[in-house]
């Protein structure tokens, strides 16, 4: 090897290494089985083919990216940027509606309000955290979700449910499992993919990949940014698979 080829090689390694890593772990190392949608998203596939995708995100504070460096670091904003970068030909519109301590009922009201304005191809509904933290009735959340998902489908759109975030504090001090299980059953009842954020985040925490609770104070903002970025990446994987499934088997709804 000549002396001259060294810089070339170095350049090559620098260019390839991150891409190689990314191919290995498209969602910060989240296990692929956690990102299986299980059901297709036909409306999203149709919208992507038509060149215009309208996405509505509803939920509580975490859709606004609390603790991050700014609104553009929250996971819905990161997801929008990633989708736009992946598919520059598609016109992507994102509407994010959420507020602190919003219950499923509050989110359902926001959903109704937005659906009255215009139809959406995809609704990302993040729910369960506030219910679990406050120990609200599981059945009330279930009924609200049933009604809301029916509205989304009636308006011709697809939905993806997003369950609570993992936190040791939440696990220790609330009965979060009861709410997670109910959300899973609601998703199955409406043939809607569930983004298992709790399991994915628990995996990241166990693997010491992203662990907001154990991050030192000065690193916390950077960690929150990374968490939101990783969540968006994981959602991209799930959405991509669900769209691929819809294309492979265009099921009439």
């Amino acid at each position, binding site marked *: 090897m000549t002396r001259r080829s060294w810089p070339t090689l170095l350049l090559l390694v620098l260019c390839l290494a991150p891409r190689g890593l990314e191919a290995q772990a498209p969602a910060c190392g989240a296990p692929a*089985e956690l990102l*299986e*949608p*299980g*059901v297709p998203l036909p409306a999203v596939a149709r919208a992507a083919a038509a060149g215009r995708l309208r996405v509505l995100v509803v939920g*509580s*504070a*975490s859709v606004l990216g*609390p*603790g991050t460096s700014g609104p553009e670091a929250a996971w819905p904003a990161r997801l929008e940027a990633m989708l736009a970068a992946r598919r520059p030909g598609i016109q992507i519109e994102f509407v994010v509606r959420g507020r*602190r*301590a919003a219950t499923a009922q509050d989110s359902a009201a926001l959903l109704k309000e937005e659906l009255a304005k215009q139809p959406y191809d995809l609704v990302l509904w993040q729910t369960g*955290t*506030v219910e*679990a*933290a*406050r*120990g*609200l*009735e*599981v*059945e*009330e959340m*279930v009924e609200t979700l*049933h009604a809301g998902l029916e509205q989304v489908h009636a308006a011709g759109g697809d939905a993806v449910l997003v369950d609570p975030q993992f*936190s*040791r*504090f*939440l*696990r*220790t*001090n*609330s*009965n*979060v*499992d*009861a709410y997670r*299980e*109910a959300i*899973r*059953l*609601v998703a*199955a*009842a*409406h*043939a809607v*993919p*569930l983004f298992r954020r709790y399991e994915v985040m628990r995996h990241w925490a166990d693997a010491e990949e992203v662990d*907001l*609770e154990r991050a030192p*104070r000065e690193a*916390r903002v950077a960690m*929150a940014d990374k968490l939101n970025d990783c969540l968006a990446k994981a959602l991209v994987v799930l959405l991509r698979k669900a769209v691929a499934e819809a294309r492979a088997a265009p099921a009439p709804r």
Partner: protein
Amino acid sequence: MRSLVRGLEGPAAPPGSGRDLRVDLFRGLALFCIFIDHVPGNWLGLLTLRNIALCDATEAFVLLAGYAAGLAYGAELDRRGYSFAAASLVRRIGTLYVAHIFLFVVFTAQVGFSAAALDTTAYLDELHLDVFAEQPYLALLQALLLRFQPAFLDILPLYIVLLLLLVPMLPLLRAPPLLLGLSAGLYLAVRLADVNLPSWTGGGWFFNPLAWQFLFFFGCALGYVPRRPDGRRGRRLTLPFHPALASGAALILLLGGLASLISQAEAEAMALLPEHVAEVLSAVDKTGLHPLRLLSILALTYLVAHLVPVGAAWVRSAPLLPFVLMGQHGLPVFCTGIFLSFLGRLALELSDRWPMQLGVNLAGILVLTAVGVIGAWYRLRGSGGRPVPAPESVALPTRAASLTNSGP
């Protein structure tokens, strides 16, 4: 340890005359499972009843608590009259209330500790978990009124209200059809009208006592031993073995098991679940003791009661004796279990890998066994060190309201 177990003191108690150790065993197992299920993140939690059935340890606990109450207070009622039995019941309720408030204080301290340890303010901004910090005086008042029940502190308030409901119903122990009819009527009315006791944080109680009372009174009716006019003990209410009933019960459990296994599976297996079945399952609420949950626990009880003979040798085997002892000292074991679960949660918050998992569960079983042993030792010493009581009183606790005996 054998000599400490009630109903095992005599060398060979004739079957049917002594204490039903199966009840103690399953009560002990339910108590241990409640400890496990109250430590979120505990790996043993994947092996408890809730994973393979539509019901869980809570249902077992409430049914067997009813059984123990029917046995103990029914005997008091027959021997010393209503006023005495009602008074000891009220005394027991007082003990439970004080225990609950003590556990509430421990819980508050634990939340404070883990909030400080994890420094979670930014992360849990959206959570109103810290109601205690926001409105401490009001929170304390609401806790005293049982209207503020933090997660995992919801079983004792349920139990307190169930025993309160038993006070006026005590005489009806002698008329099981009337008792069960009234109770079933209330259960149905509450489910149809969607009535629940109010909770301060919104909605109703996590366990609605007005619905759960049916399972409790069902247990009471099973536990009560009628006294015949000649003073001898009559026969308990039993549902005889019938192949059709047994296969029906087995089918219910099988379907329930299948449903709960599928609903925990990965997304692809979950997609196999028909949508309307998933919708039905999503409506199976624990709060109002959904009929499917009720049916599951009754089917399980029926099968266990008939498949495990009263004098089964394995029930008396050494490895299970700790659980029998736990079951015979229900209240202190229950309270200690809840207390330990707080410590267990803190421990698993620090690390949830296998050394800590092993440590938490071993400590749990050792301490709970120790509580059972101490309770039994105290009872033996209290009764003058007589290891063999008079045969007539073997199954009938002498002081039903004392903390250390076999009361609920």
